[in-house]
């Protein structure tokens, strides 16, 4: 791919040279034809556009990696439509073979373009500027003037002046050739090579890194081992032993909200106070984890990505034994009020197993129609409204169940004990009828969800991206330009005629170069000669 418009610098395999399909030739000719087509500018352009087009469905359809819930919803609502979408990988666009095909071809095309261009570039670097064309007056920019010093002196002076302007200069009998702006091509190559490096870095990150999610309740801890994750997605080359052995404890989560006005309830700040051990032997250190301020331990980053409530309960069963004690993780229905659903399964309760379905409201208010709602996400007046069921929880069936929710089918088979009780405040208890025990609402804790990610290629990716920008700026702003000067004795003798011609080979650069050219002509000694803009 090139931004210059230079025929001479073009490798043979260019789009603009007519390519004929090899008729009836051998495999080799076909391969060559394929390679030439692939590495041509036009193909690269088309692939580039296809790359962009190909990512469009990724923004329209929910993606498994980003919103698995929405994908599941489509499968539930319209299975055959979903199956069709899935057949074309439209829920995993960025992992799809057809998407991979596009970018692999694009990068092959890039490589095929960069290699020959690098060769041309290196040769050009060593080459002298080409000799002056015979007729400088035919160049887009030209000027001529007379000088009263001899030809040789003028030549030497011109060459020196151009060198002083950081032109690369070659001289010959009666002419000086100068060229400047090689950095443009340097930038162009840097840009394209950086893009390749970026792809490699992204690939390496996916191969050598991992990410995982975990939910931690206040007071609990996390140690970075595969088993501790709720969800763990390793790269192909990651072994379970290689995880950075840090651990931490969530001491406290503090969330502040806007208390009044139109934005009441909007979060202002999250602060998760962690006590971190960088390794099992390391001393503990405090870390205030915030959004935008991840915890870093030797390249492994821990991010705060979600929060919610975990009220604590004690369940005493019909025999008078404590069958459950501790926090239960509740799923918020809406984050604007944090009204939440909690599920407690007590398989150890005797005589019957117990299931509790609890609605937790952090700031409780009774509406006029009697319905209880939460009016604020902070825990100002927390209550828990308990519904209780007795019977077989069906946990032994071997079928995996959500720990956060009841299976409604199972629930239907259980015996309802309490369906509409007054909400409990902290410290209050609810007697379960039929001698099934007692539930006590003991307090309110909070949970956070964390994303833990390790990507060793983050920095290389950043460097590659930076290289691409620098290259781009050079490629777009620098002009490649040539100046030729012919000096000859004037027809009558006695003085020297100096002819100057200028040419820029960069798209859109003419206007700027005209100024610079006029400036050069003046510096070379013209006193009155007007610049002739032959364009």
């Amino acid at each position, binding site marked *: 791919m090139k931004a210059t418009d230079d025929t001479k610098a073009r490798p043979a395999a260019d789009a603009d040279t007519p390519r004929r399909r090899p008729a009836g030739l051998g495999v080799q000719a076909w391969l060559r034809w394929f390679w030439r087509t692939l590495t041509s500018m036009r193909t690269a352009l088309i692939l580039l556009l296809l790359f962009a087009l190909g990512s469009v469905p990724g923004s329209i359809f929910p993606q498994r990696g980003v919103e698995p819930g929405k994908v599941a919803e489509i499968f539930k609502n319209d299975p055959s439509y979903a199956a069709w979408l899935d057949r074309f990988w439209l829920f995993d666009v960025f992992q799809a073979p057809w998407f991979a095909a596009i970018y692999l071809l694009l990068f092959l095309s890039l490589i095929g373009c960069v290699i020959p261009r690098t060769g041309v570039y290196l040769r050009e670097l060593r080459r002298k500027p080409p000799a002056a064309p015979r007729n400088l007056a035919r160049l887009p920019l030209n000027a001529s003037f007379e000088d009263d010093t001899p030809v040789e002196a003028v030549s030497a002076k011109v060459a020196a002046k151009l060198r002083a302007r950081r032109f690369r200069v070659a001289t010959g009998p009666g002419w000086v050739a100068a060229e400047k702006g090689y950095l443009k091509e340097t930038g162009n190559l840097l840009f394209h090579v950086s893009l390749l490096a970026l792809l490699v870095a992204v690939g390496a990150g996916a191969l050598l890194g991992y990410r995982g999610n975990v939910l931690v309740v206040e007071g609990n801890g996390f140690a970075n081992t595969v088993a501790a994750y709720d969800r763990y997605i390793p790269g192909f080359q990651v072994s379970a032993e290689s995880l950075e052995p840090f651990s931490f404890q969530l001491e406290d989560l503090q969330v502040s909200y806007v208390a009044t006005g139109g934005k009441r309830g909007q979060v202002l700040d999250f602060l998760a106070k962690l006590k971190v051990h960088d390794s099992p032997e390391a001393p503990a250190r405090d870390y205030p984890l*915030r959004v935008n301020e991840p915890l870093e331990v030797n390249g492994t980053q821990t991010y705060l990505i979600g929060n919610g409530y975990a009220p604590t309960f004690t369940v005493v069963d019909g025999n008078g034994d404590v069958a459950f004690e501790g926090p239960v993780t509740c799923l918020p229905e809406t984050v604007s009020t944090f009204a939440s659903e909690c599920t407690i399964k007590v398989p150890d309760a005797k005589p019957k197993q117990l299931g509790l379905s609890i609605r937790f409201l952090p700031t409780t208010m009774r509406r006029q129609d009697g319905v209880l709602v939460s009016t604020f996400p902070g825990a100002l007046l927390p209550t828990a409204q308990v519904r209780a069921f007795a019977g077989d929880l069906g946990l032994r069936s071997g079928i995996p169940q959500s720990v956060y929710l009841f299976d409604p089918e199972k629930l239907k088979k259980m015996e309802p004990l309490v369906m509409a009780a007054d909400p409990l405040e902290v410290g209050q208890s609810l007697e379960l009828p039929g001698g099934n025990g007692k539930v006590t609402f003991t307090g309110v804790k909070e949970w956070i969800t964390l994303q833990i990610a390790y990507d060793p290629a983050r920095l290389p990716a950043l460097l590659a991206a930076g290289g691409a920008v620098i290259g781009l700026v050079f490629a777009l702003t620098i002009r490649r330009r040539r100046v030729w000067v012919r000096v000859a004795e004037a027809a009558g003798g006695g003085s020297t005629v100096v002819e100057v011609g200028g040419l820029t080979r960069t798209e859109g650069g003419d206007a700027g170069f005209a100024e610079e050219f006029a400036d050069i002509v003046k510096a070379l000694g013209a006193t009155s000669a007007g610049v002739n803009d032959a364009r």
Partner: protein
Amino acid sequence: MPVEVDTGLATLSDQLVLATVLLYVFAMVGYALELGFGRAAASTAAPARELASVGGGTAVADAPPPGPAAAAPGWPDRAGTVALWLSWLGWAANLGCILTRGLAVGRWPWGNMYEFVVAMAFAAMTAFLLMQLRYPVRFLGAFVSVATTLGMGFAVRYLHVQAGPVVPALNSYWVGIHVSAAIIASGLFILGGVSGILYLFRGERPGRLPSRVELERIAHRATVIGFPIWTFAVIAGAMWADKAWGRYWGWDPKEVWAFITWIAYAAYLHARATAGWRGRAAVIVQIVAFGCLLFNLIGVNMFLGGLHSYADVPPG
């Protein structure tokens, strides 16, 4: 943590936004009068569309600037001058409304769609006014005014939200880097997009608008400056995403469309550099890219959602 909102400043900001829209509308009328009744600038200077082709380099000729007025400037000329002054006034009001909003809430004043669109209109107007200082592009004023007026009118009518604090994810110095870059690049792309659209509407015949060559040059120049800034905005976004979301690239809808826009503009720059895609074809690619840009700035927030939580669009 800025919780207090200075309501006095916030109200002033809301008033300044109205003043800005009004001034832009008046400026638009002035430019339109000049365009409609002024001398046909390009027809007097119509030649100069030759191509000089030397040594493989193809140089597109400069259209010489319209010659100095033979007679004293007529009233349409003066209307244009007045329009320019009104634009500068509107620009100052626009700047004022952004500053007062920022001061009122004590943060970067691009925390939601409303603020973002107002800032973009400001960037587009700035790009035009600066370009107009160096190049004879006053004719663009009418069209840039239309674009900014529509944008800001839409923002005031449909996107306005009370000044207030932002969610924690947006409370980062990255707002100043990433979003500012996106705004500046967008302003330049709007300027380029306006020229490109004019190019398509303008025939080859001489007329009041400058030649197509001139229009294409403006579009190209704006894009060349905007593109690296856009690239930087995307990369800064990735660095922020690495800090905020735990990955630097995750194909969130905004990321997808930033990428698509980037590719489309890259394709335009490449297309122009190779023979065969010059002129109309290249301009069409540029306008497609511009469409992607607009969709990313507005459509993605409204239709696609995703992690970019600033789509703080008022309900209803």
